[in-house]
């Protein structure tokens, strides 16, 4: 899946010469925490975040006898380019969602402006967008039961399980597999659209599969 499937396309941007006051207003209006800063031709020149603004406000706030008015004056007279981050971690429209997830994690940023081939801002993807993709992929909130099976780490292991599930005429809404505590095994997590998992569990056990009990995961 490409990042373009999950990014937001209506990006609120700001120009480098706009004031911090404008930036703060835009963030509040659109409930976002950062704005890509764009120059000519929609080219990305930086990012300004709510944290950049707070840090700019801090020295004024510490002044003895400083007033609300002085603070507003400072915000109105400080251009965005003075506090923005110039070295921005970005994704491109050709990146996969996996690229974006890795970038967000490895560079510890909250969002990635997504750039088109000409360096213009085509969209933005945030940690929230990525979490939403995960929630959907895991089938969380879909009407279903969870089934956890341990399989030997060999080709075709999953096919055996799904063949058994198929005989019960129920849909699988999500499959996830991860390494198991034993190195030559994998744990497979299914979400299947039925309340009646008992018979499926039994059939799998009779076929020699190890079913994990939820209690096995308790501390």
């Amino acid at each position, binding site marked *: 899946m490409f990042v373009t499937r999950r990014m937001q396309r209506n990006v609120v941007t700001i120009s480098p010469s706009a004031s911090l006051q404008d930036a703060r207003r835009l963030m509040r209006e659109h409930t976002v925490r950062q704005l890509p800063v764009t120059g000519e031709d929609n080219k990305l020149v930086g990012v300004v975040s709510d944290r950049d603004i707070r840090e700019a406000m801090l020295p004024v706030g510490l002044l003895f006898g400083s007033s609300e008015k002085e603070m507003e004056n400072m915000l109105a007279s400080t251009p965005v380019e003075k506090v923005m981050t110039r070295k921005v971690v970005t994704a491109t429209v050709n990146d996969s969602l996996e690229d974006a997830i890795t970038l967000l994690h490895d560079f510890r940023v909250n969002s990635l402006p997504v750039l088109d081939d000409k360096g213009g801002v085509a969209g933005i993807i945030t940690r929230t967008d990525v979490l939403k993709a995960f929630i959907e992929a895991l089938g969380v909130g879909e009407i279903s039961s969870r089934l956890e099976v341990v399989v030997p780490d060999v080709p075709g292991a999953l096919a055996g399980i799904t063949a058994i599930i198929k005989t019960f005429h*129920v849909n699988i809404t999500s499959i996830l597999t991860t390494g198991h505590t034993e190195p030559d095994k994998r744990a497979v997590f299914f979400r299947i659209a*039925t309340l009646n998992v008992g018979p499926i569990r039994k059939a799998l056990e009779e076929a020699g599969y190890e079913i994990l009990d939820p209690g096995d995961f308790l501390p």
Partner: protein
Amino acid sequence: MKNVAYVYHPDYLLHAPPFEHPESPDRLNAINTHLEEVGLFNTLMPVTPDYPDNGDILRVHDPDYLRKLELACRRGDLTLDAEDTYLNKNSYLIALLSAAGAIAGADAVATGKADRAFCAVRPPGHHAARAKGMGFCLLNNAAIAVRSLQALHGVSRVMIIDWDVHHGNGTQSIFWEDPSVFFFSIHENPAFLYPGTGRRWETGNGAGEGTTLNAPMAPGAGDDEYRLVFEQLLAPAAERFRPEFLVLSAGFDPHCDDPLADMQLTDEGFRFLSEFVVALANQYCGGKIVSVLEGGYERESLARCTEIHIRELQKN
């Protein structure tokens, strides 16, 4: 001793699975045989429901859904929407009769013919939403009883207490934006068990914000954990809401012997839950409770705990 109505209809046995299935007629047979053996029937007021008016059902369900369900049964479909809920030729009528049982129980209590009622009905109801049956449920019996109390008996504020081990997603969705009905559900954590809803932060919406309360329980939770939730979550909620009537979605599948889930309630746990809701009803509702059977699949614990539950309902 309180006069408790026992609502039952022999036709409840006619909704039967076309293959081996945990939700089958012998659940009610097990209950009836056991209640007979322990001599409880002599102390109960029998109520046999009649088929309901369509209007009673339409207070909760979508007319198109009812037509679809009726057609599917006539056609001989084995499942609803090719999903996990089975049907036979009788299922539509028996689902109506099951809802009628809950209505009859509510009616008996509301009119004072009985102090409390236990409705030994099936198919169960709490997964059924307005326009969709699922999870062995076709029509939402408890919700239909609530709406009939409100429409016919001048009851305004009803609290539903759902202790079936599965989250009552259908009931929750029906009353999601309704401030007149408080829905409380205690169930196994949806990460591990069907239907995958009923998380802590699902609390209703709009005018109904705050009148839905979910208590998801970790696998392995038992009597002590349930007791804590009833004392610390349910009791304060009832105090704030001040219900005029309690409707129970009584599922006996959180029992430690039940094969479908991972809770560890004992017989004593069900006695405590029953005693607790009776105390709540006495405090706020003049004692009025209608208890509607939901799940419970291990026949022996189901029958024993139903007896224990009814005996608590009989206490003052």
